[in-house]
């Protein structure tokens, strides 16, 4: 019994080995004449070197863009700025009289609208500062709404740290930049 199993195994392995060996022998014989072999050998070094042509996508200058026209005339510097603490957007007590005077002016000048710009100091990072400036402008807007100004008359925009008033690296300067700035918008042309 054992013998038969062993014999069978020998036959199987033997066949596998012969099979492998035969396949190896068969390959080079396959229909290539010596002339062709020589021709191929002489071609090969040329063929084998890969080539690459270096190209580059052109960066074209943008010369035109869609226009977005201004809809208001600005009248600047009528109002004082209000200021904020670092990384904060709540209205400080010293801002309240300024907001009151702005509300009074808007009550008297019914044809004018208001733009509130939110600004930050340079110490934070730009994108978060834009969000913070948005909050500061919104806090000022909410105070004016509470003082009776319709929300439709107040536009806001955040400039983050993109438009500093003062560029020195001192706390005095940073405080000047952490501000909401008010711009009267005259002659609405909707």
């Amino acid at each position, binding site marked *: 019994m054992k013998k038969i199993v062993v014999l069978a195994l020998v036959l199987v392995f033997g066949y596998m080995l012969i099979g492998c060996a035969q396949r190896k022998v068969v390959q080079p014989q396959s229909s290539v004449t010596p002339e062709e072999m020589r021709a191929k050998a002489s071609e090969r070094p040329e063929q084998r070197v890969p080539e690459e042509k270096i190209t580059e996508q052109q960066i074209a200058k943008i010369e035109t863009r869609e226009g977005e026209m201004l809809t208001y005339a600005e009248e600047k510097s009528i109002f004082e700025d209000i200021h904020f603490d670092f990384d904060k957007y709540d209205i400080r007590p010293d801002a309240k009289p300024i907001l009151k005077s702005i509300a009074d002016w808007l009550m008297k000048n019914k044809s004018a609208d208001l733009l509130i710009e939110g600004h930050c100091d340079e110490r934070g990072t730009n*994108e978060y500062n*834009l969000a913070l400036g948005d909050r500061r402008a919104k806090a000022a807007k909410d105070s004016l709404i509470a003082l009776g100004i319709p929300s439709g008359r107040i536009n806001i925009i955040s400039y983050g740290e993109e438009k500093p008033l003062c560029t020195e690296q001192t706390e005095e300067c940073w405080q000047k930049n952490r501000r909401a700035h008010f711009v009267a918008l005259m002659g609405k042309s909707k």
Partner: protein
Amino acid sequence: MTESKERKLKINIVRMVLITLCTMLFAACYAVVEAKIYIDITSPALKKLPIAIYDFGGISGKELSNIVKDDLEFTGLFTYIDRAAYIEGPSQPFNPSNWTPLGVEMVVKGTVKEGKELTLPVSLFDVLEAKEIFKKEYKAGKELVRPLGHAIANDIYKALTGEAGIFRSRIAFVAEGSGMKDIYIMDWDGKRITKLGLKENLILAPHWSRNVDSLIYSAERNRQWGIYLVNFSNRVVKKVFSSKGTNIAGDLSSDGNEFIFSSSKDGSQDLYIMSLRNNTINKLTSSQSIEVSPTISPDNKYIAFVSDRGGSPQIYTMRRDGSDIRRITFEGSYNTSPNWSPRGDKIIFSGRRGTNQICIVNPDGTGLIQLTMQGNNEDPSFSPDGRFITFTSDRDGVKGIYIMRANGEAQKKITPKKMKAFYPRWSAK
């Protein structure tokens, strides 16, 4: 007797089996040798590979070989052996015995032919194995010397590390000229700075499309922050999104069909995803806090962003549908500007440590390391292979663009000394 015969047979079988196995093993070994990796970048105990790079001759040859040298050296994986030490003449055949005394392990040879265009056959030789392991002939117009040099460096890097090189990638950034802001594009090494000509008042960080032919950015026009897509192969600037409030573009998805952004259009600054195909907008977060600066993971499944929901700005991650929000930064009270590595395994951000510093952390919040020390360092962005970082720094007085390795080594400024430049973003390839 029969027993001894049986034993012989058994021994024979064992022999045959062994021979078969050896043959198979040999074949397997041979296959491995063919894809040999000469530098294992993932190894922590990496030994720099000493490499010799010949001057390729002619007017542009020196510049070309210097580009290859500078590219390879910046990776920190190679030690360049100076040309003055070479014994072998540039036209002599490669002979390993000329190199072993110098400790050189790899040799790059090539001679540029300058006709109508540049033709440059380049060979890379392995000294230890005494054979040529890479050969290619390059052709390029004369104005493309730098891209040609970078293409050669890419191929050598690929042949030795098995990874694609990033030396033809680019960095987009924003700078100011005569009062107007514009987007500029430069090579990753700071050369060939090109201005797009957008002429905007204010521009925020641009974000690359995956196929590197367009950028999405935010700009302020007429007191509104809009999101614009500029395609610089067909010169078109298209408004993608605009509304009242603060709208800030984030990453484009890897298929280029969507982008994420933050907007205060509904009052509070929240995160949204918008399809560029059908302009549908999905809101991802709804909270009273600030959510800003989203960045998408390379598998498109997660988003890292900044939120002040815990009282100070910190980095959070969530699934792309807005679920499973987790805070990942706990050190410091001001961590912003996250950027997800193209490998997926790291997030870089700017953390306030007295001044703003670039930090790196695992997406689960472990393994925090501070990479910069001097000045204010902001807006970090990974290279396409995740091995390098570009960022803004004011350490020498003027805000400019810097690059460094992802472990903080080799920090250097790449924009001109006096140019005020910020918001660098490394291209996706």
